[in-house]
């Protein structure tokens, strides 16, 4: 006989090998692309992370009257993230209306300025994980029997006239089986004060107003989860997946090690009285 030897073919093995090669190639390509991402690479090379903010919205960002420098929750957050990356946060004052466009145009690397995730801007920018809840909440005095929205039947509920809290309260009135009286005030603080003064049994207000009210001596506690969640996020350009990943990783790490809680606590009374 000749030197011919029959080798049994295993086509499934060849197919698996081909798939594995393709997968590795795609992963390698993605890794290289992420590594080459211009925004993140530039931040690493220069050691500077340009963060846009409009310093006119305390306690998130405002200009210190003494130093003229921006201070606030968002300022501390930007600096904390930058420290984790081993870079410096350069805070760039940008008018609020221009912030998202400035990020999209890469005039700044990111924006941290009490910004919600604008649903109509997702084609131009990306939004990080939330770093603080700023939506609408139900609050009542500590020890109140009101433990959920359904307990509001027959009660008096305060809200700021014309606010998102007012709208949420009216929506709740329509959804709940038992009606409640809506007590409207001219401001969020007045609505919160109405509860402490006994003129209302509960209040529907934004979470930040509640936190600041308690920081100033109020004694109201949030009841349950937010009625409408509307958290603040960090805005990064579209097409900067590495930067977005790093921002989200930093936020997660700061949450885990307590830094984010400390920042919130410094500017807001998030724990309640």
């Amino acid at each position, binding site marked *: 006989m000749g030197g011919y030897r029959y080798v049994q073919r295993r086509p499934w093995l060849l197919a698996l090998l081909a798939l594995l090669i393709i997968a590795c190639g795609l992963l390698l390509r993605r890794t290289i692309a992420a590594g080459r991402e211009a925004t993140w690479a530039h931040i690493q090379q220069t050691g500077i992370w340009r963060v846009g903010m409009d310093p*006119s*919205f*305390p*306690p998130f960002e*405002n200009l210190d009257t003494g130093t003229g420098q921006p201070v606030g929750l968002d300022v501390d957050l930007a600096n904390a993230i930058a420290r984790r990356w081993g870079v410096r946060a350069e805070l760039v004052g*940008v*008018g*609020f*209306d*221009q912030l998202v*466009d*400035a990020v*999209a*145009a890469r*005039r700044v690397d990111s924006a941290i300025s*009490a*910004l*919600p995730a*604008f649903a*109509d801007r997702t084609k131009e920018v990306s939004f990080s994980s939330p770093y603080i809840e*700023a939506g609408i909440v139900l609050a009542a005095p500590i020890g109140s029997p009101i433990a959920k929205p359904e307990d509001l039947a027959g009660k008096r509920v305060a809200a700021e*006239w*014309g*606010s*998102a809290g*007012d*709208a949420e309260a*009216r929506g709740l009135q329509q959804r709940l089986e038992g009606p409640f009286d809506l007590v409207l005030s*001219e*401001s*969020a*603080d007045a609505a919160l004060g109405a509860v402490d003064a006994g003129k209302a049994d509960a209040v529907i207000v934004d979470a*930040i*107003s509640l936190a*600041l009210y308690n920081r100033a001596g109020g004694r109201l506690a949030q009841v349950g989860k937010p009625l409408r969640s*509307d958290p603040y996020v960090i805005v990064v350009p579209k097409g900067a997946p590495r930067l977005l990943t790093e921002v989200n990783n930093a936020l997660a790490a700061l949450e885990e090690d307590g830094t984010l809680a400390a920042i919130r606590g410094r500017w807001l009374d998030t724990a309640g009285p």
Partner: protein
Amino acid sequence: MLGIALALLVLAASQRPRVEFGPQQHVVSINPKMCVHTRLTDEVEPWKIQRTFEMVREMGASWVVEYFLWAAQEPARGVYDWSHADLVIDHAANQGLTLIARLGYVPEWARPPRTSPLLLDKDGYDAFADFVAAFASRYRGRVNYIIIWNEPNLSQEWGFRKVDPAGYTEMLRRVYPAVKRANPDVKILAGALAPTLAPPGSEWGLNDLDYLQAMYDAGAAPYFDVLAVHSYGWTFPPDAPAGVDAVNFSRAELLHDVMVRNGDGDKPIIITEGGWNDHPRWTKAVRPAQRAAYTVRAYEKVLTEWPWAQALCVWAFRYPRPAGTYQDYYTFVDGDFRPKPIYEAVRRYARGEGVPSLP
């Protein structure tokens, strides 16, 4: 199955409010210069468009400013979609309102790829002029005021380029004659400059006074009929005196002074954006009672003390969706058309029922 599908369609249609124009309405107000910016660009439901203009009329405002996107009206060169504009303009007219149309927002075919929709090269000026002319022609008799661009003295509004008063003037030079050929009755509003103290060389823009002077220096005077002005009060009352280093409501007087110095003092101004905000924490906001009183006082001031101002258009009547920011505190009614205290105060004023005292 077909019968069930048809039944469901009929049921769905019956759930939507039926929108009929109804009889021609007229505004009743003691102040014919009252105006609001209605922000219906993103509002697609006809009943909400109608309800917006109804409430504006009932409040006593005779004018509205509305933003029409070039990119939406002309999705491809020479191909027009006037459907949304027709809806807005017809409803405004039915409510007896004078509509000022702001035009801008560059379609993708008229700018380089992946650029801001607020960027228009000189190469695109003729295309923009053609669009404005087509708009003016279509709405002849129904729209007599057109604002060309918006806040060109801000880099962001100029496509994130260095601001260019001469470039904006060139835009006006192309647009003006094209529009007048199409509709000689329309008034072209130029400027709509952002009130800002940005100094020369700032990467973010140029202050409105210097920018306007630069427009005149570039020969803009023959190419607009009305100067559009933005006049926000921030934390200052409407009677706070004007100053070159101050952004307040009276800054409009300084812009008028620039016009006078350039021999253009007979030309009117329309304040196409302005007003106050009452967010509890924004540093440029006032309290709700102040906002109501300041707004009414501003309407009164424009009527009795500023003969050169044709109208005051306060920002903004309503947003289709909450912004979730301090900007929600500019509105007169919420997303569900519930009037805020400022709406009630302005309505009482327009009916001659009194002016809220300044806190």
